[in-house]
């Protein structure tokens, strides 16, 4: 009843091609952005910013990057965390070595560095596919953190190979408070998500999907396979690189290259599998699921044990939390293998008919 597009007529091509063709979606997005920009900064505390919202946004951006490569262009990658590491270290070095470098320019250049590395490790994709390509990107995941640690220059010869991010300063203003960092990250992520949404419905996105669905057919209709795949690698790594820079500057504040390890790459991969492969919304839903659910589960378990005065063996709640989390992943994958984004789509279809489904 509420969610029905009856009566919304498109009278121009522009109106028909707009990003969100249904008015309710546009309103919902505006409300969501208004909440994120106006309500959240007033309501949330430091814990919410530092431990929940900023990591969620950073990982959503990384998942978005991987989703472009894996979900839209069909190239499986296990190197997302390595590209994040490239972005983080590159941003640090631009800030450190170029006097007066604007922060956002360093982030963009960091993304470009990651893109260049991504293209390099994307070259094997021209010859190999599927699991074999995953193994090739695995090489990136092992090689890049090793190199960043091995060559002292990258970490400015810090004794343990850890880099610490400089203060975030944009046109003389220092982003120091958690709420300021949150707004900065939110803006970057929102703009890049908008760009991604537009990219995947433009010519370049359509050629990615053509290559994903059948590369021989795509080549036959004149899509240059090499360029398409490498562009996908470049764009995906750019997103991961910027996510890495945000991870270093807005979230943790330090980066140890070995933190951005294979585990992290897998986590990003799980985000898009659970959120929905080939969906911009899915990247956000998946990031929320993987980064936030364990935290909430632990808080909930903690509250339950306090409530009932249970005196569990220390460490028990953590193990129960891991069990429940694993169980939920399996549950969601069984009931909806196409991810949370597909679930949302089904809900939308049902809402159109509601409350008269017949």
């Amino acid at each position, binding site marked *: 009843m509420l969610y029905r597009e009856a009566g919304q007529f498109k009278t121009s091509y522009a109106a028909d091609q707009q990003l969100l063709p249904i008015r309710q979606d546009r309103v919902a997005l505006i409300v969501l952005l208004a909440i994120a920009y106006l309500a959240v900064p007033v309501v949330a*505390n*430091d*814990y919410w910013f*530092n*431990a929940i919202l900023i*990591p969620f946004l950073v990982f959503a951006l990384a998942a978005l990057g991987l989703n472009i490569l894996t979900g839209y262009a069909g190239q499986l990658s296990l190197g997302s965390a390595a590209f994040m590491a490239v972005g983080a270290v590159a941003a640090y070095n631009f800030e*450190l070595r170029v006097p007066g470098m604007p922060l956002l320019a360093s982030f963009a250049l960091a993304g470009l560095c990651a893109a260049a590395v991504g293209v390099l490790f994307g070259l094997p994709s021209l010859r190999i596919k599927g699991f074999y390509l995953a193994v090739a990107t695995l090489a990136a995941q092992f090689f890049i953190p090793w190199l960043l*640690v091995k060559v002292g220059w990258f970490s*400015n010869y810090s*004794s*343990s*190979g*850890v880099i*610490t991010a*400089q*203060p975030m300063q944009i046109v003389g203003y220092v982003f*120091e408070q958690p709420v300021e960092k949150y707004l900065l990250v939110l803006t970057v992520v929102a703009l890049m998500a908008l760009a991604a949404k537009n990219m995947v419905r433009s010519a370049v996105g359509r050629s990615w999907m053509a290559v994903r669905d059948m590369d021989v057919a795509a080549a036959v209709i004149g899509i240059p396979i090499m360029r398409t795949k490498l562009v996908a690698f470049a764009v995906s790594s750019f997103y991961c690189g910027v996510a890495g820079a945000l991870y270093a500057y807005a*979230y*943790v*504040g*330090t980066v*140890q290259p*070995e*933190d951005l*390890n294979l585990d992290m790459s897998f986590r990003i991969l799980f985000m898009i599998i659970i959120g929905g492969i080939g969906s911009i919304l899915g990247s956000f839903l998946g990031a929320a699921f993987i980064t*936030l*659910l364990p*935290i*909430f*589960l*632990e*808080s*909930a378990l*903690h*509250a339950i044990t*306090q409530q009932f005065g249970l*005196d569990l*063996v*220390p*460490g028990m*709640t*953590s*193990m129960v939390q*891991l069990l429940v989390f694993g169980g*939920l992943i399996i*549950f*969601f994958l069984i*009931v*909806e293998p196409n991810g949370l984004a597909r*679930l949302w789509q*089904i*809900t939308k279809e*049902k809402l159109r008919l509601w409350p008269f489904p017949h």
Partner: protein
Amino acid sequence: MKNTRLTIIGLLLAAALLAPATHAQQAGTQFIGITGYRVGPYGANGAAFFSGFIDYLHLVNERDGGVNGVKLSWEECETEYNNTKGVECYERLKTRSATGPTAIHPMSTGITYALIDKTAADRIPLISFGYGRTDSVDGRVFPWLFPLVSNYWDAATAIVKFIADREGGEARLARKKIVLLYHDSAYGKEPHPVLEAEAKKLRFELKMIPVPHPGNEQQAQWLQIRQFRPDWVIVWGWGVMTATSLSTAQKMGFPRDRMVGNWWAGSEIDTEAAGGAAAGYYAASLNLAGRDFPVVRDVQKHVLDKGKSQTPAKTVGSVLWNRGLAAAMMTVEAVRTAQAKLGKKPMTGAQVRWGIENLDIDAKRLNQLGFGGMVPPLEVSCTDHGGSGLVRFQQWDGRQWKAASEWVSGDRALVRRMVEDSAAKYAAEKGIRPGCLAAP
């Protein structure tokens, strides 16, 4: 259709669980936030340390009725030795009490690094007892960070000195071959600069071989070691890595009494897992193991026998459990020091920071506290956020750790010089003006 409904119910259930729990700690207590870990590859080590830490807090409440009448309360948050989880736990514990989490002991070099800027901004002291960022000994650059007692550079130079003693003097070390077998993480890389400096000074040949996390496969590294034929192997291990080093060394026929670990590679958890392979292995230690200390007897009497704690009997008196007691003792004494100046009430982070910076636990005080002989005396100041730098070597006899030396220190002058250089570089990079903070 049905599936969808099921899923939506599932989602709703999940959402119901999501309501985050926030509850205030009892007012009027000194709340201590504990970022601990008991699961994951390093869970066994963390469980021993944090059990000791909490058992000591129980002891202070049960035996003394708190610190000058102010009861202690605490909450433990599981970090899994993971840096991002550690940040999450820190942010959570920070909100739990009006006075903050007292002082944070991350028990992880990685989490220490991740919290350096955050704790300074939040005015909460960060104690890294025998780990962490070595150059933070210079408290003028790192006012909120306390690498208490000894740091990795002290340990590395002390180990070199210990080896030199076994070889018959520093001069005999020339042209000897030493391997550093290290955990490939910030923790494992921390001793590199000082060992390189020592190798240059004493003219021994140094080879550094990394072992990737978690370290349960070392065949390749030990083949390298066999080719290099070193006189000594320094094991900078953690968790399962140390036990694997010992058993692989046995397989390769490398004598264990030519292997020296640092203090994180020298607990019962490491040697017992290696079985017979560990006999003869040396390790530098920050504290002695054993139950023959008055404080351990007190914990037994007031906490364990009363069923206040679930610490397994086997853990009591182990190296890491005793270290947990000592870490908690330092926190409590810092609160006591701050209270002596500022009144008998719960202390805030800034006040506890002052308390740590003015800690002076001499041998007499250690005996009063029941820690005599277990840990060295500790005196902290603004310029020296570390302490004595003393370590004691222990040897595993196949059943237990036995002291193999007195309390010794490494090359303190060299370490201090390198600390000041490194801290000055950090200050320049971050735009910090070094200086001492005033009393709160």
